[in-house]
């Protein structure tokens, strides 16, 4: 486990976090943050697409259904816990639930690196699972928030769906996926040294910036209260467990199950915050941003990943044995 902590990606995150907490004047230009974010999303899509083009599509149906189910179940579970145990207001509970039901592409990318390093094989269509899980939870959570709304101010659903399905993360992931499938391994050859080789290094670089961003939310930890901190650790564990079982029942390998569990455990910090700020404006961003970025993301990055892999071994391994 220590080994997982001492790789460049995690250390860069820690450096950013520490620099931010110590109030260094280190700043990452916003344009760099956005450029790297754009790069990572489209490359995740492209890599997934190339893998997909080499995979038999037969076995993809069941896991996608599983991912969809996760995207619907997790926000409901999260909402119930937040509302009835945590006593959060409806909008706050729904908003946080949206984040935990949706996924973090960066956590997914770190998970793939982790599996590759351990030489664990996984399904070629895993990026499809990522894409599948991005949106449903956001829609579910927003529907909950709307249901309970006293003022019957209608949400313009047309506009809303447009914004969610054409949000930059979806466009880049799906666009990359399609390009990857169309171009395939051979066609990617001349641009490999931009889109594939530097991926790990640029991911590490991006984590430096995420550390800085996360540090800006650390001071809110007190404000959000102990319950949310516990939720930020407990919820990914619950989600990962559900994810492992769904991985098993939909026939995923140990590697694929680890990925599905990690997706389940990860909390969105690109698509969900943007959609929720518009669609559930009453929700306090301090809650969902702090939980997602300053608690769950670092937890998954360090302790979560190896744990979910262990669980996947137990659960899927047993089935196989």
């Amino acid at each position, binding site marked *: 486990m220590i080994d997982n902590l001492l790789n460049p990606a995690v250390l860069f995150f820690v450096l950013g976090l520490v620099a931010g907490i110590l109030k260094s004047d280190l*700043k*990452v230009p*916003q344009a760099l*943050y*956005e450029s790297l974010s754009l790069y990572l999303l489209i490359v995740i899509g492209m890599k997934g697409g190339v893998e997909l083009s080499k995979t038999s599509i037969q076995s993809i149906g069941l896991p996608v259904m599983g991912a969809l189910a996760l995207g619907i179940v997790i926000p409901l579970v999260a909402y119930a816990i937040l509302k009835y145990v945590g006593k959060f207001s409806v909008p706050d509970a729904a908003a946080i639930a949206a984040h935990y039901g949706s996924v973090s592409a960066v956590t997914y990318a770190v998970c793939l690196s982790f599996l590759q390093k351990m030489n664990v094989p996984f399904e070629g269509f895993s990026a499809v699972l990522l894409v599948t899980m991005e949106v449903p939870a956001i829609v579910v959570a927003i529907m909950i928030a709307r249901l309970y709304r006293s003022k019957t101010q209608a949400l313009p659903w047309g*506009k809303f769906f447009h914004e969610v399905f054409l949000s930059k993360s979806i466009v880049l992931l799906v666009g990359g996926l399609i390009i990857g499938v169309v171009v395939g391994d051979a066609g990617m050859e001349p641009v490999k040294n931009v889109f594939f080789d530097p991926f790990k290094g640029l991911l590490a670089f991006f984590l430096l910036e995420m550390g*800085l*961003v996360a540090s*800006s939310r650390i001071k809110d930890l007190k404000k959000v209260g102990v319950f949310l901190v516990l939720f930020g650790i407990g919820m990914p564990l619950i989600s990962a467990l559900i994810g492992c079982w769904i991985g098993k029942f939909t026939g995923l390998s140990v590697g694929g199950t680890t990925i599905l569990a990690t997706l389940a455990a990860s909390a969105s910090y690109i698509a969900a*915050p*943007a959609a929720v*700020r*518009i669609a559930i*404006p*009453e929700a306090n*961003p301090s809650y969902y*941003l702090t939980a997602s970025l300053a608690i769950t993301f670092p937890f998954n990055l360090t302790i979560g990943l190896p744990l979910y892999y262990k669980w996947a071994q137990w659960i899927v391994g047993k089935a196989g044995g």
Partner: protein
Amino acid sequence: MWNKKLVTIVTEKAIESNLEDSFKDWGIKGYTITDARGKGNRGVRSAVWDQAANIRIEVVTDGKMAELLCERLKAEYYDNYAMILFTVDVQTLRDDKF
């Protein structure tokens, strides 16, 4: 020179495209946006990423529309978003433009 009102709004970047739609609905003909950061009741907004970034919007318009704009922004956005606005009297070279 013609007397007009300049309405300056500072708010979250997250709602930029929503505000643009609202402006269209309300008949605002023009506006200017610059990226900004700042501090207010809702704490420091350092623009380190989109969710912590501000924008600063300027609308030059006539007195009536300015009043309407302020009212509507107050009604629709003030409760839930980091937002301030202020108005000031300005002189412009063209009358019908604003």
